[in-house]
Structures are given as structure tokens and as C-alpha cells.
């Protein structure tokens, strides 16, 4: 399993990296490499040039700033996993990163990589959809902010241009009485999800749903935002009945493909079950917060 040859550059600044991406034909960003390098070892990807952005300064951070949790795109998954701030205030993200691949891969894998790949099996996209996150991209014409709802376009296709680099993801800092959870069926550690659900909720003073974010992993060509389920819950109380109905709506919104992990029917059922369970946990955490 030997990769094909390629040219390699390791710029030290973001602008150099962007220039390199645009300056070569068939150039690709090398971030964590935990998705790209295996593809190259199978010769399923043969970029002519790899632009290694691991030496670009200033892309690794986790900060709360002006109502947002800002995470640099080159922040390693393990840093997120071990962040007390994330565990305390962003339980949906903490849940997600803890089931992402395996703990060693997480030492190299980056936050940006898990979003920019466009792989429906990646765990971050659904979570970012549930959070209503934004991503920041840097291109030759400068920086732009892309709402996550516009980011995932198709299978391995994102709104990122081929000469843009994802630099940051921003999650709105949850308001009080918020909670979240991520539930994933993996057949073993390291497996992609048979299905997974990300739930982020905010309750009002009466305990009714003020806002709900629901993202679905690996039950479509991209991560799916279960909008109908989210809208249904707004203003309603967190009764089991309401949660179950939301679960059904989320299942209806999913577009699973039958494969070795399961039939369409099974995956839809998982979406429903996990939506219900994740909402229950999110609500409990919201009430506790």
C-alpha cells in the first residue's frame, strides 16, 4: 500500500498556502492526513502536489470570543477531546469527538479535515449542522464566512473552492438551559456510523423547546439537517410524545442507502431511535445546566 509520487510543499503562512493551492494543478491540502493518506495508499487519490499546512502558524486554537466558540481548523481532534471547556459547555461536541475514529488517529486528525472532506461518514458535519455553526475560509481573494447550512453540497463536495483553505469553525456559544448529545452506532471503535444523530437544544424558562438543532450522519449523500423535526419541536414541551414525533420526522428526513451496515428501513429506525434518545439526553443536560 504505497502512495504514488507527488510534489510536496510545506508553507509557513496561510497566504503562502493559499497561493500554493492555486498555483499548482491538482494540488490538495494535507492537514491531518488521516483520510487523505489512506486514500493515497490505495491510489484512489493521486494529487500531483500536497500543500502541507501543518506548519502554518495560528490555525490551532479553541477560544470563546464574542458569543462564539472558535476552533482553528488545524486543531487536533484530541485537543478538542481533552478540552475541559468543550466538555463543560459543548457536550454535543464532546460526545462527537469521543466517537470519532480512534484515540490515536485523533492525535493527527483535524477539526477542519473532518468538516472539509465532504464525507457523509464524517461525524462533525451533522454536529455542526445541529449547532448552526459557521466556517471561515481563506482564498486568494481573502476570507469569507460560510454558514454550515450552505457548506455541504454533495458527496465529497463542499462549498470550499479548490483554492480555499478552511481556517476556522465557529459554534454559537449555547445560551443557558442548553444541552446537546451525539449518539452513534459504530460496530466497533473506528467504524463509520451506521447512523448517528446530533442534537442541540435550548429550553425556555418553562422548559419548552426554544430552539432545536438536529443533524444526521451517514444517512444521505451529505449530513442532513432534520429541519422538519427541529421546527416541529419549537415551542413545544419536552414530552416523550413530542420527542417521538420529532424522531419520526427526523427519520423521514433521512435518505439512507442500503449497504452492509444496514437496510434503509433499519437506518431510518436508528435515526428515529437515536433522535429520541439524543433529545432526551440533551433535554436533561439543558435542565441541569
Amino acid at each position, binding site marked *: *500500500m*504505497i502512495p*504514488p*509520487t507527488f510534489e510536496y510543499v510545506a508553507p509557513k503562512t496561510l497566504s503562502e498556502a493559499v497561493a500554493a493551492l492555486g498555483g499548482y494543478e491538482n494540488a490538495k491540502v494535507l492537514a491531518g492526513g488521516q483520510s487523505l493518506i489512506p486514500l493515497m495508499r490505495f*491510489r484512489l487519490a493521486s494529487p500531483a502536489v500536497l500543500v502541507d499546512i501543518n506548519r502554518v502558524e495560528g490555525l490551532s486554537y479553541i477560544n470563546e470570543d464574542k458569543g462564539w466558540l472558535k476552533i482553528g481548523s488545524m486543531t487536533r481532534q484530541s485537543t478538542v477531546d481533552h478540552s475541559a471547556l468543550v466538555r463543560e459547555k459543548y457536550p454535543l461536541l464532546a460526545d462527537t469527538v469521543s466517537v470519532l475514529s*480512534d484515540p490515536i488517529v485523533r492525535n493527527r486528525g483535524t477539526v477542519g479535515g473532518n468538516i472539509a472532506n465532504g464525507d457523509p461518514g464524517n461525524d462533525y458535519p451533522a454536529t455542526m449542522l445541529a449547532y448552526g455553526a459557521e466556517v471561515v475560509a481563506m482564498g486568494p481573494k481573502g476570507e469569507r464566512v460560510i454558514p454550515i447550512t450552505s457548506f455541504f453540497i454533495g458527496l465529497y463536495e463542499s462549498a470550499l473552492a479548490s483554492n480555499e483553505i478552511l481556517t476556522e469553525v465557529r459554534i454559537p456559544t449555547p445560551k443557558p438551559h442548553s444541552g446537546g448529545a451525539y449518539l452513534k*452506532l459504530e*460496530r*466497533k*471503535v*473506528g*467504524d*463509520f456510523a*451506521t447512523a448517528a444523530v446530533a442534537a442541540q437544544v435550548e429550553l425556555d424558562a418553562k422548559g419548552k423547546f426554544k430552539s432545536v438543532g438536529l443533524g444526521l450522519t451517514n444517512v444521505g449523500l451529505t449530513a442532513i439537517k432534520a429541519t422538519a423535526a427541529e421546527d416541529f419541536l419549537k415551542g413545544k414541551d419536552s414530552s416523550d410524545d413530542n420527542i*417521538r414525533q420529532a*424522531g419520526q420526522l427526523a427519520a423521514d428526513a433521512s435518505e439512507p442507502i442500503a449497504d*452492509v*451496515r*444496514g*437496510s434503509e*428501513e*433499519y437506518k431510518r*429506525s*436508528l435515526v*428515529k*431511535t*437515536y433522535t*429520541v*434518545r439524543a433529545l432526551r439526553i440533551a433535554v436533561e443536560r439543558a435542565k441541569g445546566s
Partner: protein
Amino acid sequence: MAEIHGLGSSRKRVEDARFIRGQGNYIDDFKLPGMLHLDIVRSPYAHAKIKKIHTEKALATPGVLAVIDGPTLQKYNVHNMPTLMSDTQMVLPLDTVKYQYQEVAGVLATDRYTAADGVAAVEVDYEPLPVVVDPFKALLPGAQKVRDDKDSNHIWHWEWGDKEKTDKDFENAEVTVKENIYIPRIHVSSIETCGCVAKWDATNGHLTLWMTTQAPHAIRTVVALITGHLGLSEEKIRVISPDIGGGFGGKVPAYPGYVIAVAASIVTGAPVKWIEDRTDNLAADSFGRDYHITAELAGKKDGTLTALRFKTIADHGYTDAAANPSKFPAGLFHICTGSYDFKNAFIEVDGVYTNKPPGGIAYRCSFRVTEAVHAIERMADVYALKIGMDPAEFRMKNFIKPEAFPYTSALGWEYDSGNYPAALRKAMDMIGYEDLRKEQKEKLARGEFMGIGISSFTEIVGAGPSKHFDILGLKMFDSCEIRVHPTGKAIARFGTKSQGQGHETTYAQIIAEELGIPADHIKVEEGDTDTAPYGLGTYASRSTPVAGAAAAIASRKIREKAKKIAAHLLEANEDDLEWERGRFFVKGSPDQGKTIQEIAFAAYTNHPQGMEGGLEAVNYYDPPNLTYPFGSYICVVDIDRGTGQVKIRRFVAVDDCGVRINPMIVEGQIHGGLTMGFAPAMMEEISYDVDGNVHGTNFMDYLLPTAVETPKWELGETVTPSPHHPIGAKGVGESATVGAPAAIVNAVVDALSHLGVTTIDIPMTPRKVWELMHKHGATLEE
């Protein structure tokens, strides 16, 4: 004086010293000057004609030296090789490929990166042909033939037992049960893949073959037979099996890569290394299982079993390359009457060709014993369920009684010893069986699905007595040669080959027990055919029963000679001497004695006149019988009605492997074996679609459990020595792999039986369990 560390000592392992320092010598660690690398072009089609192999681009790649194809090998008549079942296997095809990922051409290059580039640069034109993947369809008249050199896809029919009496019992039975059980293909996936370094010494006409092999002598003989016409003869072939990173049966067969590497070395005169990728390994190497069993039991209403009837279709891939004793194409499958006293039994197995890789017994299974045990232990539960009897009670009722040993089964095996009720009772006590049954009732009333499954297995290992056993004609004795040095230390060499079982540690313990030489003073070697005595290698848990016995017998031969020397030294009569471990002494005068060390020294400096000097012995042990380890496993599961996930809450394993040489190592073998029973039960599977495309060629698709999924095994033991084995030991390497799956399946079925479920095939993936519950309207979407 150093500790003896004889039988029963949990002696720490000698081999650890190099492994924990990263100084193991695995095949890929070998580098020889001028060494070339071999990589392999593989077929994307399960069945296709090769129209043309375009080698220009590959040969134009700097560093690529050659592209070797079937016709090239045909010039030397090594394009085909015999399998261990005397069928024919292609090394490289002349014109047709028979399974996806089959070897099509070898690329020889200066380094592994270039070899990979060469493989990527080879282009092959194929003409796809119709594919046969369903063994039942393959047996229908007019079915597409897999093999051009055969009349049909039916390889052989094998039957055993008394058909007439069995059929009669079934006719007259009060109760009969029948289930179809499919045990799918799985793959050993040792963390080290297969490989070799072939070094042809043109000056002396010698071939040295370092190889991942569990049976170096057998390989040497086979290589000699298939290359004899090229001038290679057996004394000029040296096979060295260095450190092996796990075998489990997968490193028994001879794979095409080895032969191509040897041919390449002979042609170029340079050493050639071939190392598999994981994809090569999973896609093309010998698999285990793939048995379709129609299993029936007959008996009385009160739960007494009378007869057994199994019919099996064995999917062998495109050639029969299973490593079974030649008389038994279905291995030791006729152990399937298990731990129960059947009056009559009849079994049939039909081998079938399909467009898949060849193999069948590589997966820690003792020659089809896992399949046999899975079937009988599942059917015991099926029967018990049908008559509404507790499965533990059912087993106790039907066990072969302890007084009945040695016991001859309805299928002709003479079980050496066993106490099945004691093992089951112990397991039941350890797990708190009666309380669990109470809990299960309570949980079910609340709609929670909990299951308890038992597997009371009898294993059969130690192949095997020469009157019944041979592989390719080679008898399955095994050997030990011991040489004691003047200073009382020793070296012992064996015909077996450890791949992690700790032979360097445990064989020394056997000899230490017999001779009283501290185990630390006994160097153990295996794996070099130039120095080790001939043996058939390590697989099917045969090392302790056969080579371990040879160690004891060889030690006793040494002791016999030592006694003569002692008599000479003590100026006493041999008959007046007694032995206590480590010394001979004069009866009645215990302080008048000679230690084994003193005797050893005398063997070189002061031996009796007329006696040969030195102190050594060799034994080629032909076992009088196989040995029959056994055990009872109990598994408790809880099923998630929403997702279909099965959680193993507890798993108790009581094993009886007779005398335990090293309890620490025995437990390690059981932990590993249980895990290799659990994994196929829950998640491992190699599968094919209708076009013969294989699924499960990498570790994202072929699932091996991590420390998170693997249960925390609870072990117990009983000890029922083997009456015929010199030290009463039976062997244990595979018992847990053999016994565990049925316990887990029985637990899951037990959890769902109230729905009317009677069977489920492995692997019991979440989707499969969910679909089964869903079929019965029992899933919960919360």
C-alpha cells in the same frame, strides 16, 4: 540453585526479552544485500479470461526488473502447485483467473515502492466470465463450471456413521429438531501478514527460504517435490520460520507469492522478498469456515438424545486447498456428536467449487471442529427449547458420564477422558446461573431482552495417530531432540513452530519437570529445517499433545541413560536407584546421590566403559490417540431493542485441558481464543456478491474487535488429565475459539426465543439482530 519451573509454574516467558525491545525477527525485518522486492498484480474479476498482460509501462519504470506471468513459470513447470488435499492450485494463471484478487503477475523491483509502482503500471485486458458464488447453485445439473479440468463443481462426497440406524432412529423419534446453520467465511487476520525472503545461492545450489510458516518441514518437502525437476533437492533447501506475528492456521498453506518469490530468486540469483499488504492477505489467503449445515437431532420427549444427522455443503473456493488430514476432507467434523451420548449418528459433507479463494480451515479451529461444535451446541439448545427444558439441565441429562471414559462415540472417536458435568456445574456456580434465570424472567416482564447461553464443548486435538492421519502422505508425528551439555544445561529442538504460544518457555518446563534441569537452563529452538527434527508443525492445537509428548519421552530416554551413568558414579546397581526430580539416589541412603548436572558432566568425562558418551535423545512421537480438551462456557447478553446491539454482560469460561504446563500461558491462550470466538460471532465476515466481488478486504470492512468491544473474560478450570499423554496434557490453543461462538449465539436466541426465534446465523451484527426482532414485531423505536 535456579528454580526448576516444571509443570504448573507460571514461568515468565523467555521470548518476551526480544519482543518488548522491538528486537523480534519477523519476515519483513529481514534485509539481505542486493535483495529485490516482489509485489503482485491481482485480478479485479472473480472469473475471467486473461486476454493480454501489458507490461511495457511497468518495465519502463526505473527499478522494475521483471514482470513474471504464468507462461513464464510454465517454462519451469511451476505455474501450478499441489494443494495439501492433492488438488491443483495455480501459482500464476496461464489464461484464466478464478477468484477476485487472484494473483495474475508478479512484479520484481529494486525496492518495495518501485514494485508497487510497477504493479500499478501493469495493465491487463480481461474478458469476464460467468461467476459461481452460490455452492447450492453450483451443484445443480448444468451449473457453470468453476474448473475446466473437472467434470463438475462437486469436489468430493464424504460420509461417516451409520445411515440406516440413524434414519431409523429419526423415523421412530418422539422429538426431532432441524435447523439450517450457515457459518460464513472468516479470516485469521494475524496482525503480521504473510511473506517470505527467498535466497537462491547459485554457487552451491542452495535455496534458503525464510517464511511465515507454521510447518517449515512440510513446506521444505513440498518445495522439494515441486521443484525437484529443476534440480532442487531436499537437502539443499532450508526453510527458516523466524518469529511469526500470529498464525492461527493462516500461515500453514503455501501461497502463490512464496513460489513466485522462489522462482524469481532462482532466475535472478538475488534474494527476493515478498510481503503481503493487508488487502492481499484478507482477499486472497486461506479462509476459515464457509459451511452450510443442515443439522438434525432426534430423541425422546423427556430430553434424551438418541441420534444425530448433519448434512453439510462445504464451500471450498476454486480449489481444495484446505489443510486436512488426507483421509478426512472435512477434517475432524465427526466430533460433532460433541459431549453427548448419542446412540447413532450419520453425517455427510460435500465439498463444492466456487469462484472464491481456496482454503477452509485457517482460523484457530482444529480442522473443522469449530463448525462441528457450533452445530451440536446450537442444536442442543434448539432441542431443549422445543421441549421446554432448561438448557443446562438438558446438557447434564445427555452428557457422556464421567465413568464412561474412555468413551467411543457413535462416530468412532475414542474420547480419552472428561468430566463434563463438573465443568458445567462450575461454570453455573461462577456465573450464578439460577439467579440469572430469575433475573431474566423479571426483565422479560418489563420488556427487556436478556439471554443466557451455554456451550459445553468437547474438542479434539493432537493430530494425530499415524494409522489415521497424514497430510499429503506425511505422517503427523512430531518430534523433540534434546542434548544435555557437560555443564548440565540443555538445548531442545522441535518439529513444531510457535507463533506466539510460548513454546520457548513451556517446552522447557516439560523437560525441566522430567529431568530436574531448571527451565532457565534449557534453550528451546524451532523453525529451522536444517537443525530441527522433522515435524508437521503447529496448528490444530497439536504441539502440546504431540511434540510436548515427544519432549517428555525424549527426556525419559535421557533419564534412562542418566540412571546408568548414576549407577556407575555411585557404584551401585541401577535397580537400587530412585529418582527425585533432578537426581538419582540410592534407595535408603538419600544423601548418596548424583544430580543430573553431575551426571551430565560425567557423560562427557567419566562415562561407563562400553557406553556411548554424550547425553541426548530424540523422540518422534506417534500419538496413540487424539486428546479431548473440553469445557463449559456461559454467556449473558442484553439486547438493545432499539438498535439491535448485543452487549455481552458476562462470559464465564471453564476449561479443562488436562494438566496445565504453564497456567499463565494457558489463560492467555484462552483469553485470545475466546476473543477469536467472540469476533466471528459478532462482527467478522468475508462475503461475496453475485458477481464474486469480495467484501471485507481491509480492517474498515473486516471488523476485528478492539479492547472496548471485547468482553472481560472470567476464567475457571477443571483438570482431567489425558490418560494416554505422557504428562496428562491435552492442548488448549483453540478450545476457546471452538467453544465460544455457540455460547453467544445461544444467549441471543435465548433472549429472543419468547418471540418464536429458534436460530440466528453469525455474525450477529446489530442489523441482523434488529431485523430478526423486527420480523417478530419486537423492536422498540423508543
